[in-house]
């Protein structure tokens, strides 16, 4: 594959990643957010595969495969299971209205493109629009974490944010060393498991969610 083809494919995947991010921000129900984050991880895996085929980097194949198995299949399944197990209200409870969050996410996209444009010649060395898309995904994931009351949707935000960092790392520097990537993936799995257990525990002992914790006073 020529460099131009790879660049345009990565650009297109970046646009689709932004679209899934918009769906995550706008999702009114937890299930939709989970499906959207699974689709996003699948796109990240495809991007990894494309970059691996283009650069011949074996590490990238491994990373793409791990992403496909862990982040596109396993973690969404765990989230899905927790939602069913907890029997929670399936509607997302935002801190500020979803329309406001959407407006903020547009602002984030525009700002990250603007910031990356100021890089000038440095940006030419980076694959297409991967850097601004990665920054936008990361920041929007943080936005989702900050504006949702329930722990589960905050986890979805964390995964989306993690996807953004992954995408940036893959496209900008053709992947971090394999050992670091695996470490990051393990961290994410661990975080997901710990959070899942905590959510279930908190739920079963005091019947409260994260938003109620700010009433705790020392």
């Amino acid at each position, binding site marked *: 594959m020529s460099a131009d083809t790879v660049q345009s494919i990565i650009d*297109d995947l970046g646009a689709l990643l932004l679209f899934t991010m*918009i769906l995550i921000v706008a999702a*009114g129900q937890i299930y939709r957010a989970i499906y959207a984050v699974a689709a996003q991880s699948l796109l990240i895996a495809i991007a990894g595969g494309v970059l691996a085929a283009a650069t011949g980097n074996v590490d990238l194949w491994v990373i793409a495969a791990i992403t496909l198995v862990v982040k596109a299949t396993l973690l969404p399944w765990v989230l899905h299971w927790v939602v069913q197990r907890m029997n929670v209200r399936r509607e997302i409870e935002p801190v500020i209205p*979803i*329309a406001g969050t*959407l407006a903020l996410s547009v602002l984030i996209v*525009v700002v990250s*493109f603007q910031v990356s*444009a100021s890089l000038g010649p440095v940006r030419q060395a980076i694959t297409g*629009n991967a850097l601004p898309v990665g920054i936008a995904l990361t920041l929007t994931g943080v936005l989702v974490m900050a504006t949702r009351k329930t722990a589960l949707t905050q986890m979805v935000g964390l995964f989306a944010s993690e996807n953004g960092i992954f995408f940036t790392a893959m496209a900008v520097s053709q992947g971090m060393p394999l050992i670091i990537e695996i470490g990051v993936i393990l961290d994410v799995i661990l975080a997901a498991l710990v959070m899942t257990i905590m959510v279930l525990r908190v739920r079963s002992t005091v019947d409260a969610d994260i938003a109620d914790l700010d009433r705790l006073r020392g």
Partner: protein
Amino acid sequence: MIGDRSFGLVCLEMALLLLAGPLVTGTIQKIKARLQCRTGADLLQPYRDLAKLFRKDSVQADTASGFFRSIPVLVLAATVTAGALVPVIRVGPPALPLGDAILLLGLLALARFLTAIGALDAGGAFGGMGASREMTIAPLVEPVLMMVVFSTAVAAGTTELGALAAHRGTEWLLAWRAADFLGFAAMLMLLPAETGRIPVDNPDTHLELTMLHEGMLLEHSGPGLGCMLLASHTRQMVTLALVSALFFPAGPAGTGAASLLLGVGTSAAKILVLAIFLALVESSYAKLRLFRVPQYLGIGFVCALVALALRIL
């Protein structure tokens, strides 16, 4: 101004959009019926409905003013004129100065405004409610449509739809840039709203809780109602043709009768695909609560805005 589409061709395209409009509605209804395991009405049923309406006399509310009678004709005229601006059979700018996408959106907005005015004029409660709802939705739909058109117009450097379609060229899907995906996603979210279908509106019912567009037609009768229905068929057709002109304008380049037929065939295929999409969406989603509609359209707006940002920045 030297163009590729002669006056006759533009007239032919306009007539095609007008005449095939009811057929597309019939097709969508048929697909929906098949998905619900019903036989469904014949494909030509919308034509029969129109023929029946045009044979009838019209009655009019006592409270309606003289302007009320002219409204269906004006709405139909505005919609059909909008149809002249969309390239259907061939791409390329028209040979005569016609107008661009902004005029097209303006004409569609004019038709919508006249419909609402007519509903208010008759003085019925349902008409007023339908008009108020339609006017709540319209300012959310039209900016998104404009953004999508602009996001493709920025790349081509023109807002004339024929030239826009010609700029995209024949290898449309391979030449899609990142912004096109987002613009197309926004357009697909917008399509049910613009054609008055689920999840935004329900075209099949006259229940007061669900209707937007149908509520405004209640006071019309006979030929007037026929004109309004024909206008809404044509509007749907114009919107579908606009989508295919913006995103996949593949058409033959020749001038002979064979390439003309081929052009009709390809555009029919494209519109059929979009009609199947609409029928699938209508069959698999429930209608949104009215207060949820702004959020749904907000997704489309954000997508279109990001598409524009991808183009410019």
